[in-house]
């Protein structure tokens, strides 16, 4: 975006490679403190090279990040544990970059990227479901800030987070898409209460967050008042990009787990289940190839709409495969490991036991966009079919049926 002060010739793969080597030469990962190293990497513009200079980047093409990462990895440099701070990296950061003030960018991006500050997302509400634009958490103007009251749900990392991106309703008299505003919320505010949300697996991966007159200074607003929906679109678009697209080896996911179960010849592994196993294995392999193909399309600069197919198929296959696995296990499938409430740090869809996998997979077609919403998106945006009739676009939010 911004014109770099350095010679643009440097921003090709070779240029970035030598820059990274120079950086490594003056910041030896073997002897530098992890936090210090990461902060220095950010300041050197090697955090996310496509970000502007001064904000962890160099304004270089995004695709070249892999060059930097490869050099750093080869040198044994620590990373910023991206799986721990995924919401910050994948959703908060691009939104702050797009809509934040200079002060906000300066304040938030560096500790976000280094992992010194964890972020979470306060979007979903118990009453909203797939209709995110119906959020009812109220933010009311008070002096130079806002009082926020409401309930959010499905918030991962809320109990570890320092900051949250928060979608609120600031004008209930406006139509639903027009009365929202978007904030950065301080999770240490006394008006913020985090409670674990127990799932059908017994675990609590997520939280409910109760906002009870939480205070947010107006300087933590992202985008204009009433523009919250537009800001949230940026967040969500980046969420969709983050899902899927990881290259995976054959049998890399649930199909490998179930294939291994089959190979152990459990009681249900009979002729009758073989064809089902193979059909699912085949579909999983084809979905993997489709993901690879999507990656090649992206690399060739012509991204297709196949991302939504990936998520749809991933959910379908996780569920079918894990269901089959329980049947293969027979007697063992009737047992579970542990129903006690746990709060896992990370989620592993293929972890624990077959019973856990079966139950956890049920969430794959709900979280991050239900399969039903994905089918609507495919039908309307890819196939060009007419949108669903809706009666909620021009009515004041407060008058909508709920």
């Amino acid at each position, binding site marked *: 975006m911004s014109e770099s002060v350095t010679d643009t010739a440097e921003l090709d793969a070779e240029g970035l490679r030598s820059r990274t080597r120079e950086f490594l030469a003056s910041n030896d990962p073997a002897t530098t403190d992890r936090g210090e190293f990461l902060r220095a990497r950010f300041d050197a513009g090697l955090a996310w090279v496509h970000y502007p200079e001064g904000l962890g980047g160099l304004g270089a093409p995004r695709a070249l990040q892999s060059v930097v990462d490869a050099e750093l990895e080869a040198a044994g440099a620590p990373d910023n544990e991206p799986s721990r701070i995924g919401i910050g990296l994948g959703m908060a950061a691009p939104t702050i970059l797009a809509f934040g003030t200079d002060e906000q960018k300066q304040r938030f991006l560096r500790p976000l990227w280094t992992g010194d500050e964890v972020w979470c997302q306060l979007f979903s509400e118990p009453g909203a479901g797939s209709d995110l634009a119906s959020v009812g958490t109220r933010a009311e103007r008070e002096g130079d800030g806002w009082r926020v009251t409401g309930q959010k*749900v499905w918030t991962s990392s809320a109990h570890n987070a320092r900051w949250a991106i928060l979608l609120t309703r600031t004008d209930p008299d406006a139509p639903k898409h027009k009365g929202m505003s978007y904030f950065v919320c301080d999770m240490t505010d006394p008006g913020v209460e985090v409670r674990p949300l127990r*799932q059908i697996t017994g675990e609590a991966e997520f939280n409910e967050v109760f906002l009870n007159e939480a205070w947010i200074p107006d300087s933590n607003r992202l985008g204009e008042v009433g523009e919250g929906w537009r800001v949230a679109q940026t967040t969500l678009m980046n969420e969709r990009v983050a899902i899927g697209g990881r290259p995976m080896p054959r049998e890399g996911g649930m199909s490998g787990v179930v294939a291994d179960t089959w190979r152990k010849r459990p009681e*249900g592994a009979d002729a009758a289940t073989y064809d089902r196993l193979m059909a699912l294995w085949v579909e999983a392999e084809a979905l993997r190839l489709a993901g690879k193909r999507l990656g090649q399309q992206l690399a060739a600069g012509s991204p297709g709409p196949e991302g939504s197919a990936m998520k749809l198929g991933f959910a379908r296959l996780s569920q079918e495969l894990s269901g089959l696995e*329980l*049947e293969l296990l027979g007697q063992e*499938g009737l047992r579970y490991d542990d129903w006690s409430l746990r709060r896992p740090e990370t989620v592993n869809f293929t972890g624990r036991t077959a019973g856990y996998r079966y139950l956890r997979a049920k969430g794959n077609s709900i979280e991050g966009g*239900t399969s039903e919403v994905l089918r609507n998106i495919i039908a309307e945006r890819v196939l060009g079919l007419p949108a669903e009739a809706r009666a909620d676009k021009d009515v004041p939010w407060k008058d909508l049926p709920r």
Partner: protein
Amino acid sequence: MSPNLLYSTEEQDLRASVRDLLTDRCPPERVLERCEEGETGDPALWHTLATQLGATSLHVPDELGGQGASVREVAVVAEELGRFVAPVPFLGSAVLATSALLGCRAGQQRDAVLADVAAGNRTATLVVPLSSCVGGSFPTAVRAGEGRLSGSVRTVADGASADCLIVPARGADGPELYVVDAAEGRVAVDAVTSFDITRPVSDVEFDDVAGVRIADPDLAATVLDDAVRTGAGVLASEQVGVAEWCLDSTVEYLKQRYQFGRALASYQALKHRLADLWYELVVARAAARYAADQLATASDDAPVAVGVAQSLCARVARHAAEECVQLHGGIGMTWEHPAHLYLKRAKADEIALGSPSAHHGVLGPLVDLHPAP
């Protein structure tokens, strides 16, 4: 005579009594609370079912202290218990163990146990893995010699609440059935964590335990097979109850919830999925009623009827429970909503007493459809 596939007036009355009791004493919130508190059963409810409604003695003849009804009525109770995922040992005690006892030759020992179990004074279970399918070979996990049993059986339904155990064991002359007092010191019944929270399972171990033989080698294998078949046939009705709750509660939920300014229930893709579920429920109910009827009349067609009902109803209940969770969206994934109790019951029931594929394998040859060589 043509089998009656409807619910008779008596059956409807019975259903109403059971449903009234469960509505009062066993609403989903209560079942969830119990799970929360780590209680795996509801002994008080079980006692009421047994003593006030006689639900434990329906297909036991009058002269043995029972109601002289039939498996049809047992199936009606199972359907209601399924609808409420009631945490009571009905399947283990009133269905599997009682059916096994009924199959054994009359005698003082058998009659006494049967009367006790029928009256609800004692609770029993059949010591086989819950995944056992009709037509399997007689289990060899427990050995019997000179009236004493040794061996262990994993994943037994309703074991922890059982006072007496009906144990298939292999003796010197072949298959036998024994009654063992669960309180005996050398019997270990270890509750294990059940996937189906509302149906506990246990591992049972016998270390040279005294047992009373109630079926000799000439009878034991048939008795066990018949009991497991009856269990599978009754389970089909339980699955109908599970499926119906899942459909009903999903319909209600979708009618109440609005998204994008419209009731969720107005979205055609969801409507069609619910219509398909309803179709499945219609055929499942017919199959389950037929199985109950054929078992009740000891018809020659009972094995076919059970194979059809169990393989179909298992899939239908599981599908209904999966759709229930999915169509409830996020709330369906939470512990606080009862949908997961039904999902766990439905998935476990799909494996219990023979998976659909296992039943296909047993059913096929009965109707001259043999697997490819």
